[in-house]
């Protein structure tokens, strides 16, 4: 039993399961999945689809947080990426041309990568605190997005582009497939190469990493660049789903949701050990929360109150000072033991 509860993915998974079950009680048909027109439909599929952008952004954020950093600019990058892609597509004579869409998507992703690279340079080369360094792009980025769209919402009518965030492929939403592929590739990249270990080393102990000869700067720049690309893909999905680039609202507050997803997933904000699977679970918890509130008829804006409660609980439980002060009178410490050997092994091989 202890091996199960001690696993680092136990709590985020448990929270997710409880939330899903609660939905099932309220809405009996919640788990039903139907096939219509060769597409899968159902609340669970909706959660996956609507949660796709957040899963991607949180994925990038996880890697940055593993190095002991943070990226506040992801929401702005989401807006910029969608804006650029839609701007390029709307300028084409045939918006439905696959080649044109591919070029637009490629350029949007390149720009996202450049923005992430810029953040990385500020953190690793200029040596500015990550919160401050990425704040610059967070402030300016939304302006850049609106600059691209000239302040208007750009509507596109492009079936190939629509596929990215709203289409289906092999009966599944295309976005979900993209997320699955990106998560799998990232998992392979960090766990099959030495990348994950070296990132964890940097976040776990920067000075020791320097003395062991890890070239931290490059890896940190790489992490921020990757985070930028993830936010870029998420931006494509969001704008594709509604066939509109909205420089003002696309990805608004997404950085905060992403950080939240990472923390709920069990990766500490201080850096070091990270878990991609946990982050995916964390993002799904947030999306399920939003969906649940939506289906119960509470105004969606009120979701924020629940999020605040979740952030507070998760952070307080993670805080050693809180545990020491509140659980002081308990006979035994309530803290779960550090990841068991079995759990660590799963992480290494995951």
């Amino acid at each position, binding site marked *: 039993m202890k091996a199960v509860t001690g696993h680092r993915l136990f709590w985020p998974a448990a929270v997710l399961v409880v939330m899903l079950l609660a939905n099932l009680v309220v809405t009996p048909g919640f788990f039903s999945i139907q096939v219509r027109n060769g597409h899968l439909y159902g609340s669970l599929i909706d959660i996956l689809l609507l949660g796709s952008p957040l899963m991607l952004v949180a994925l990038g954020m996880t890697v940055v947080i593993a190095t002991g950093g943070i990226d506040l600019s992801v929401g702005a990058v989401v807006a910029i990426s969608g804006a650029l892609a839609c701007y390029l597509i709307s300028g084409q004579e045939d918006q439905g041309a696959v080649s044109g869409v591919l070029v637009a998507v490629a350029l949007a992703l390149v720009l996202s990568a450049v923005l992430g690279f810029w953040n990385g340079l500020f953190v690793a080369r200029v040596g500015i605190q990550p919160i401050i360094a990425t704040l610059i792009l967070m402030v300016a980025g939304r302006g850049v997005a609106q600059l691209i769209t000239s302040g208007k919402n750009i509507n596109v009518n492009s079936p190939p582009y629509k596929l990215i965030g709203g289409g289906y492929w092999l009966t599944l939403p295309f976005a979900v497939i993209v997320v699955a592929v990106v998560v799998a590739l990232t998992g392979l990249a960090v766990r099959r190469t*030495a990348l994950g*270990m070296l990132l964890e*080393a940097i976040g776990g*102990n920067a000075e020791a990493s320097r003395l*062991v000869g890890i070239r931290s700067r490059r890896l940190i720049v790489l992490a921020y660049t990757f985070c930028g690309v993830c936010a870029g893909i998420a931006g494509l999905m969001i704008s594709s789903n509604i066939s509109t680039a909205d420089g003002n609202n696309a990805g608004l507050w997404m950085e905060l949701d992403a950080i939240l997803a990472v923390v709920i997933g069990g990766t500490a904000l201080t850096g070091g050990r990270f878990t991609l699977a946990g982050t995916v679970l964390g993002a799904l918890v947030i999306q399920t929360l939003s969906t649940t509130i939506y289906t119960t008829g509470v105004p969606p804006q009120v979701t924020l109150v629940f999020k605040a409660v979740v952030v507070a609980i998760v952070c307080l439980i993670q805080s050693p000072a809180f545990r020491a002060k509140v659980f002081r009178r308990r006979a035994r410490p309530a803290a779960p033991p550090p990841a068991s*050997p079995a759990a660590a092994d799963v992480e290494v091989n995951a």
Partner: protein
Amino acid sequence: MPGAVLEMIGVSKGFPGVRALADVDFRLFPGEIHALMGENGAGKSTLIKVLTGVHAADAGEVRLGGDRVSVTGPQHAQTLGISTVYQEVNLCPNLTVAENVFIGREPSKAGAIRWREIRRRAAELLTRFHVDVDPGVRLGACSLAIQQLVAIVRAVDISAKVLILDEPTSSLDRDEVEQLFTVMRRLRDDGVAILFVSHFLDQVYEVSDRMTVLRNGRLVGEFPTADLSRIDLVGHMTGRMLSTLEQLHVPEETARVQAEPVLKAQGVGRRGSIAPFDLEIHPGEVVGLAGLLGSGRTEAVRLMFGADVADSGTVALGGKPVSLRGPNIAIDHGVAFCPENRKSEGLIEDLTVGENIVLALQAANGWLRPLSQAKRQELVGRYMTALRINPADPDMPARNLSGGNQQKVLLARWLITQPKLLILDEPTRGIDVGAKAEIQKLVVSLAEDGVAVLFVSAELEEVLRISHKIEVLRDRRLIAEIGNIGSVTPEGILEIIANGTTS
């Protein structure tokens, strides 16, 4: 002589597994500078912490002005008249000198701080102590010495009976130390009792009137400085009496035919940490660095690895001149370094034992060329067995290992890279006897295989047992190089440390 202003009688203090202070008596008189001497772990800092109320004594009593007191914390100590100034200046660098002297007790009228009054009084105080600094200057812009003096001025102005100076001179250069001593002497003449802790023997002899020597948590004795020779002091501190002052025979450099040196440093130094020195290490040679704590051993080896960057001199690795701007460059040339501070600079506690072991090799390979799972298991398994790392579980978080096993993990990490030069800073400190012997044996066998080893240890026997050549440091200066032939004894090295005989 007037009565002691501060007295400790039969004070004991234990921590789980350690007896830090055992039945220690200590007296401090007004108008004296009293040095507290002892090696690392002798109980100096515990004694200071009991005096300032950080720790409560298990037994014994503290008397202030003849009355028994129980100090509950640094704040309480200060109100009683015991102030402490640490090596790390505990002031705010962003505030002015004047404000640092008065913050928290600013003179005010109708709720408003009277700045003119603060500046005037600060200027007065600084003049009185001959501290030459404009009170309106930001503290962070001042030299460390001035910052320390400002801390002293603040402490003395709050309460002027007892002043404890814990390693105040560690980061100061010669002139700054003089400046500090001038102020200390002035305070002494005003009747303040000063407790001075320093690793620098010269400084202790220069400024102190009396000294108390501790060893292994016990009182060795209380001596007037003028009556205690340096040899005797070092003897008291280390527990080895140098009864016979035989002239040490410094042997000539061993005339072995030797290959190209693995490392050749000329005039390498770094201001404020170690004076320029020369050093040569050949393949298969173990070079030991001996000296008291704070003598510059760690500082010297860090320069050889590029952990700190030297500001003078040249280094050649394998005959080629190299600019050691960072650890990467040293590692690329086959240098490995196990730092003194295992937890903060060596081990990555989040990672598993196996990951920690392959980290250096993997870092050198780059992230794109991961070791295969099989290769990794083979290497980790081989070195965990060879070094007898216990428990033999490569997937355990490294934080759960004991000190000795953590040290072995760090050794394994570097041995995997097959270094040409292995730098070990205090590899046997704080680990059990068995592990210690294993590590010493390992060093010897590595040298037999042709690896050059630069070995730092506070234990002279250990240095003597395994080194071919010994470099002696004192007061951040390399003062002697001795070939380790049969006639060299720990006592001989201690004598060099004490008297500063330069070869």
